[in-house]
C-alpha cells in the first residue's frame, strides 16, 4: 500500500513531468532555431574558409587571429588590423554615445510622463509605445529623408539663409548616431518610466523640507530610486546598438561600417565564414559583458534593500 505521502509525491512528479511536456514545443523551437545554431557558429570560427564561401573541415585558429591582426602576405608577420580595430572602436563608441544621448533625453521625458495626472499618463505612454512598435526600418528611412542634403533640415536652414550649401550629415557617423538615438529612444523611456511611476513623491517633499535644492533632490533622491530603470534602459539600448545592422547600412552608407556590416561582408563578398563567425562570437561576448554588469548592479541593489 502506498502511503499518503508517497501518493502526493507521485502526483508532484507527474505534475512536473507534464509541465516539461507542455513547455517542450517552445523549448525545442528555440533550441533548434535560435540557441543551438550558436554552438555551430563557435565551431565554424575555428575552421578554414572554403574557396566559394562555407568552410573546409580543417582546424585553423586563423579566423580568431584576424579578428584583430593582419598577416603580412610576404613575410608572415602579424600587425594590428587597423580596419577591424577602427570598426570595433566605432561600434562601441557609437553604442555608448547612443546610450548616453537616449538617457539624457529619455530621463526627463519619463519624468515628465510620470508627473502627469493618472488619466493623461496612459495617453503619453501610448504616444511612446507607437514608435516603439513601428517598423525600425521605416523609422530609419524617415530619419534618412529628414537629414539628407535635399531633406527638410537642410532645406529649411538654407531658406533661412543660415547656411549656403547643405551640410553633409547623411553617410557620416553623426547620421548613424542620430538614427540610433531616434530608433532606440523608446527603449530607454519605457523602463525608466516604469521605475519613475512607482516613485514616492513624499520622499521628494521631505527632501525639499530639509532645504535640498532641485538639483540635490534630483541627484540624491530621484536618481537613486529610479536607478534600476536607468540600468535596464541602458542595457536595452546598448545591446541592439552594438549589433545594429539596419541603421548603419541605411544611414552610414558603405563607408562607415559597424560590426554587423563587417560580419555581413564576410558572408557575402568576403567569403570568409570563419572570420564572420569569430566576429559574431565577439559581438556576443561584448553583449554578455554588458549583461553581467547589469546583473551585478541589479543584484547589489536588491541586497541593499533586503
Amino acid at each position, binding site marked *: 500500500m502506498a502511503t499518503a505521502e508517497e501518493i502526493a509525491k507521485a502526483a508532484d512528479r507527474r505534475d*512536473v513531468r*507534464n*509541465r*516539461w511536456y*507542455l*513547455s517542450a*514545443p*517552445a*523549448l525545442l*523551437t528555440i533550441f533548434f*532555431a*535560435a540557441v543551438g*545554431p*550558436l554552438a555551430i*557558429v563557435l565551431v*565554424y570560427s575555428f575552421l578554414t574558409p572554403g574557396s566559394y564561401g*562555407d568552410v573546409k573541415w580543417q582546424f585553423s585558429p586563423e579566423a580568431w587571429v584576424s579578428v584583430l591582426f593582419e598577416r603580412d602576405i610576404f613575410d608572415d608577420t602579424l600587425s594590428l588590423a587597423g580596419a577591424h580595430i577602427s570598426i570595433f572602436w566605432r561600434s562601441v563608441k557609437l553604442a555608448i554615445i547612443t546610450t548616453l544621448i537616449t538617457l539624457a*533625453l529619455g530621463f526627463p*521625458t519619463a*519624468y*515628465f510622463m510620470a*508627473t502627469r495626472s493618472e488619466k493623461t499618463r*496612459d495617453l503619453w505612454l*501610448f504616444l*511612446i*509605445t507607437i*514608435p516603439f*512598435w*513601428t*517598423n525600425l*526600418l*521605416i523609422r530609419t*528611412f*524617415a*530619419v534618412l*529623408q529628414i537629414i539628407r542634403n*535635399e531633406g*527638410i533640415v537642410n532645406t529649411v536652414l538654407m531658406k533661412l539663409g543660415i547656411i549656403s550649401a547643405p551640410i553633409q550629415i547623411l553617410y557620416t557617423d553623426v547620421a548613424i548616431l542620430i538614427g540610433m538615438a*531616434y530608433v532606440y529612444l523608446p527603449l530607454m523611456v519605457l523602463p525608466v518610466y516604469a521605475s519613475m511611476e512607482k516613485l514616492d513623491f513624499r520622499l521628494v*517633499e521631505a527632501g*525639499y523640507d530639509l532645504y535640498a535644492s*532641485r538639483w540635490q533632490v534630483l541627484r540624491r533622491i530621484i536618481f537613486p530610486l529610479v536607478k534600476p530603470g536607468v540600468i535596464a534602459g541602458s542595457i536595452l539600448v546598448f545591446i*541592439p546598438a*552594438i*549589433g545594429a545592422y*539596419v541603421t548603419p*547600412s*541605411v544611414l552610414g552608407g558603405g563607408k562607415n561600417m559597424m*560590426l*554587423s556590416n563587417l*560580419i*555581413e561582408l564576410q*558572408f557575402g563578398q568576403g567569403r570568409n565564414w570563419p572570420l*564572420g*563567425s569569430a566576429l*559574431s*562570437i565577439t*559581438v*556576443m561576448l561584448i*553583449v554578455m559583458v554588458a549583461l553581467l554588469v547589469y546583473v551585478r548592479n541589479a543584484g547589489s541593489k536588491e541586497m541593499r534593500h533586503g
Partner: protein
Amino acid sequence: MAKSFSIRHQPGFTTIAAVCFVALYMPIIVLVVYAFNEAPSTSEWGGFSLKWFQSASQNAQVIDATLRSFQIAAIAATLATIAATMAALATTRTPPYPGLTFKYAMINQPLMVPEIVTGVALLIFFSRIKIFTGYSGLGYLIAAHTAFCIPFAYLPIRARLENMDLSLERAAADLYATPWQAFRRVTLPLLWPGILAGLMLAFVISLDDVVITEFVKSGGQDTLPTYMLGQIRRGITPEINAISTAFLLLSVVIVTLFFFVSRKRD
C-alpha cells in the same frame, strides 16, 4: 511668493520632453506627407496625389513580398502563441521545480542575443540542412520567426496567468470537470485577452523583422521589409513612402488594439 512651489517640477524637463515627442513624430509625419506628393521627389512638394499608392499596389514585387510577409507572420505568430501559451501554463502558478529557471532563461534567450548573431547562426545552420535535404522553401523563415516570436508572445500570457489564482480551476475540478474541460471552459476564457495580446505582439514582431530574414532568406524570398531595404539602398522614390505609410497604418491599428486588449481589466 509669486509662484507656488511645485515639488514635481524640474527645470527644463518639460522642454526636453516636448522636444522628444516632436522629434519622435516629425520624421514619421514628413514621411507620410511625401507619400501623397505628386512630384517624384521626397523634398519638393508638387501637389496632392495618390499615384504612388497606386503604383505600389500594382508593383508585382511589392505584392509578392507583402503576401509573403503576411503568410510568414500569420503562421509564425500562431505557432509561437500556441507554444508560448503552453510554456506559460507550464511555468506559472507552481512552486519552484528543478528546471524552472532553465526554462525562463531558454525562453528569454532570443531577447538577449543580438539579431545579427542569430542571423549568422541560422544562415550557417540552415545552409547545412539545405544541402542535406534539398528543401529550400519558406519553412526556414517560418521556423526562425517562430523562435524569436515566442518570448514576445510569452510575456503578456505569463503576466495574465500570474494574476489568475487556481481557485476557479479547483472549483471546476470539485464539480467533476475533467482537466481538459476545466482548461477549455475556465482557464482559456480567462486567459484569452493575454493570448490575443501575445498573438498581436508576435505578429508585429514577425512583420517588422529585417535582420534575421535578410540572412535566412533564399533567393526570391523577399519579405516587405527586406524588399524595402534593398530599394532604399538603391535610391529612394515616393513609392517607398507610400508602402511605409500603409505599413505604419497597419502597425498603429495593431498597437492600438493591443493597448486596449492588454489594459482591459476583467
